[in-house]
């Protein structure tokens, strides 16, 4: 546990998929290795561990998502063993919530087979996660047509796989926005060019000028907020606005585990937990930045942008395409309302 928390703090993970994978593996370990008598105790243990993991790296929402997901799995499996329908746990609709007069499940009955069944379900979920990138990429041909011009920002593994999948059948042109100051766009461009995809790298400032030629904007995202807004790489907001101006559709790729319960308004200007302000080193070297003349200059290096939902046309996840306005619905299927607050 301590080692895992330490790795979280030191950002020793490679993208949000890796983080999600490590988190759920860790949770799986907790389920097998700790002692618990019934589902309620297990959920308390998971919740406790989850709280610590979330506070170690509050800007990574994926951790909280994984914890909630595991809690939901435990609830479902418990109810299934009890022989009731899943519906009663899900409280499917407002109508049901009001009309149902069922007793609330207390999850206190000790069940022998719970552990194995929960483990099976968790493993199944991990398989689903592993397949998510392929599932998304498989939809590529439906969205990318021949001779289209696609614009993307920075580097996203999902976008990379998506474009490469499409390139197997279609010929198209990709414009990569470099994404200063980290310039991850350069890496993506290199990787795409190696697969013989026609690629152009442009500076961040050239986005608006290029937009008139673009047919689709396809970007990855760090996470998707409950209102359908995005927490995406720095610069994504500008790209989305330019796309809106030119009426270019913006397609966002992201697996379901990136979908989280947070609303942007709930963050209330709390920069630390939404954005990540890293060292200004990338923007300006300390060699220059530490001089007397620049001592009163504030230099910022934010990592993320908030993209409001109205700028996003389509959200493609491993289960298919959805409009951002539908996110709340997906959320209620993914997570149990009692777990919203860990």
């Amino acid at each position, binding site marked *: 546990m301590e080692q895992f928390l330490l790795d979280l703090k030191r950002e020793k993970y490679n993208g949000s998929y890796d983080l999600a994978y490590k988190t759920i593996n860790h949770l799986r370990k907790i389920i097998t290795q700790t002692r618990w008598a019934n589902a309620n105790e297990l959920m308390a243990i998971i919740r406790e561990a989850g709280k610590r993991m979330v506070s170690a790296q509050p800007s990574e929402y994926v951790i909280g998502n994984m914890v909630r997901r595991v809690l939901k799995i435990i609830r479902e499996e418990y109810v299934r063993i009890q022989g009731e329908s899943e519906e009663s746990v899900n409280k499917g609709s407002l109508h049901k919530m009001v009309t149902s007069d069922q007793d609330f499940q207390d999850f206190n009955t000790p069940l022998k087979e719970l552990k194995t069944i929960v483990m099976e379900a968790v493993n199944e979920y991990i398989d689903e996660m592993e397949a998510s990138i392929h599932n998304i990429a498989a939809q590529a041909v439906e969205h990318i047509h021949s001779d289209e011009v696609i614009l993307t920002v920075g580097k996203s593994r999902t976008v990379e796989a998506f474009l490469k999948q499409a390139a197997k059948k279609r010929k198209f042109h990709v414009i990569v926005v470099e994404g200063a100051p980290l310039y991850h766009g350069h890496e993506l461009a290199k990787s795409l060019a190696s697969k013989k995809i026609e690629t152009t790298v442009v500076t961040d400032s050239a986005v608006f000028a290029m937009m008139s030629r673009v047919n689709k904007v396809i970007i990855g995202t760090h996470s998707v907020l409950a209102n359908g807004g995005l927490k995406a790489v720095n610069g994504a907001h500008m790209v989305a606005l330019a796309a809106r101006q030119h009426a270019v559709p913006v397609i966002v790729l992201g697996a379901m585990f990136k979908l989280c319960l947070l609303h942007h308004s709930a963050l209330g200007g709390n920069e630390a937990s939404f954005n990540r302000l890293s*060292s200004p080193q990338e923007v300006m070297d300390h060699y220059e930045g530490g001089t007397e003349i620049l001592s009163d200059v504030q230099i910022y290096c934010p990592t993320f942008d908030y993209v409001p939902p109205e700028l996003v046309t389509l959200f493609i996840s491993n289960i298919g395409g959805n409009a951002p306005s539908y996110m709340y619905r997906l959320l209620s299927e993914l997570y149990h309302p009692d777990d919203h607050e860990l």
Partner: protein
Amino acid sequence: MSATQPRCLFPLANRPLLSYTLEFLASCEVKHVYVYCCHLAGQVKDYLSKSKWMKESSPCKVTPIVSADFTSLGDVMRDVDQKSLFESDFLVVPGDIVSNVQLKIPLEEHRIRREKDKNVPLMTLLMSKSSPKHRLRSQEDTVVIASDSITKRVLHYHKGCEQKKVMFPMSIFENPLHKVEIRYDLIDSGIWICAPQVPTLFTDNFDYQTQLDFVKGILINEEFLGNQIHMHVIDSQYCARVNNLHTFDVVSKNVVSRWTYPFVPDFCYDDLDSKSEGRYTLLRHNVYIHQDCSLEHDTVVRDNCIIGPKTRIGNRCQITNSVIGAGCKIADDCCIDNCYIWDNVEIGNCCTLNKSVICNNVHMLEKVTLEAHCALCEKVKIGPNCTLQRGTTIYLQMNNDEESIKKSFDVGEVGNEGQGYVWKTEDNDDINDLEQAFWGMSLQDYHNTVSESQIEEEESDADSDLLSDDEDDAENLELLTIDDDLTIFQREVKESLLGGFEEKIDCDNLILEINSSKYAYNMSVKDVVQTVMRASLEIADLRKTSDKDFFPCLKSILLYLTPLLCKYNKSSSSQLDYLYTLEEFASQHEQTANVMVKILMFLYENDVVCEEVILHWNSNPKGLAGDLFAQPIRKKV
């Protein structure tokens, strides 16, 4: 200020300095840290035992070693040697470092160098880059370094800039293999990667006090000890030391503006200590406000501020560019700019504070004005209605008995209810000097006056630089002419060797003895080598009873002295010096000449002189006694 609190526990952005150092080490995956606590060691140890570092969950093992006797880095290293703590390469880090450097690359470089050549590369100095007008620079830290730009070997190290000129030894430019690079854009970070021999060298040379002594010593003796120093320049990461108020100010600002990311105030440090429980929230313009503090109506906190836990600030205050610690009470209508306010400070109504440092538990009554560069030490009380001039320091002696505390305070200075004395330098420098001394322009004064008992916390030292500087000066005055020194030196070496041989003293001690006289008389390596050889021959000459038993006698002496001879034979030129001395002596003493071959054989067999050197000597007869040449050569063949 450091009289009551060790420097490594000074709160930098509301966290003790030491915690930055340990976090930095932990982030570099250091497994075991020995913390040498000297000045006010108890406090450092208490802090460590309460912190997360001593808990089981700690990412690295921290062992405090407490002793008030260590007054310099040299003492610490000698202790390390005595306890033989390290068998492989290790890091030396001062306890006041703030950094986010990843040490993997320099460590790897160091390891490769060591693999290539077993004993030669001794250590790697880490340097951080800084432009000449950089704010982290202070005068005392100025270094000029000549290095080889390919091998990164340090050829010359010059510290301080009292003079406008820097002298480089010609020898570094003469070697055609060197691509010499002279750099002024570096700051010594104080981080060294050391080979396990380093503590031993400190023991051998017991006059080494500081890092500077050591580096200089190694560089001067490079040819005869055969050790080299390399450096690694930290390119794009942050690394700085806090060793005076000026750097304290600069580094605090850097932490607030996130150069030290991820070690910024809103980082999750996981302290279990109740004082710093909870987290800071980052607002726009680098304002960090703790969850647990309260700001009253109309109080404005502008750019680059930190406000600590349980602090209460009254109405209509203006706070800019300041760090305010835990549990402070600030009343209404205060104006605070560029200040560092530590824990549990109380400030009355309508105070104005500019660019000052206010230590723990200071109490300021109403309407106090601090002009720029003031410093208030622990538990001082000021006010009401008074103004401190620019650059004033107020202190309160803690250790003195009651009477002296009751001794009248200067009411005009500290106000009617004030408690504290104004710090004055002994020779009544004008205020400007003191202020500069404090705030980093010329730090020599600062150390001399303020920090007589400066902290000597773990593995770091600041003022012993000064002590040793003074000693150097003294030595320079004593310097006699070299010739005189040489004869005295020779006599002394001979005496110690003779004494050593007769009483069978351990050879290591002899080495020590010779080394110390070498420094006392400022001898070069060459002189030492020649003197040692000559002395041993002379001793043999003295002790022989007849011509026949000269060689057995000499042999027993040489056998006894082999470790000593081996000590100085690191380079081929020293070995050659042995031979020339031998030759010179042989030309004057016939018996020696007769057994020359045997001596050579003996030296060769005991690895004092290697084959190439003998052959080289043989083929290049430029010796001192030309006419006798033919003889040894013939015999040798």
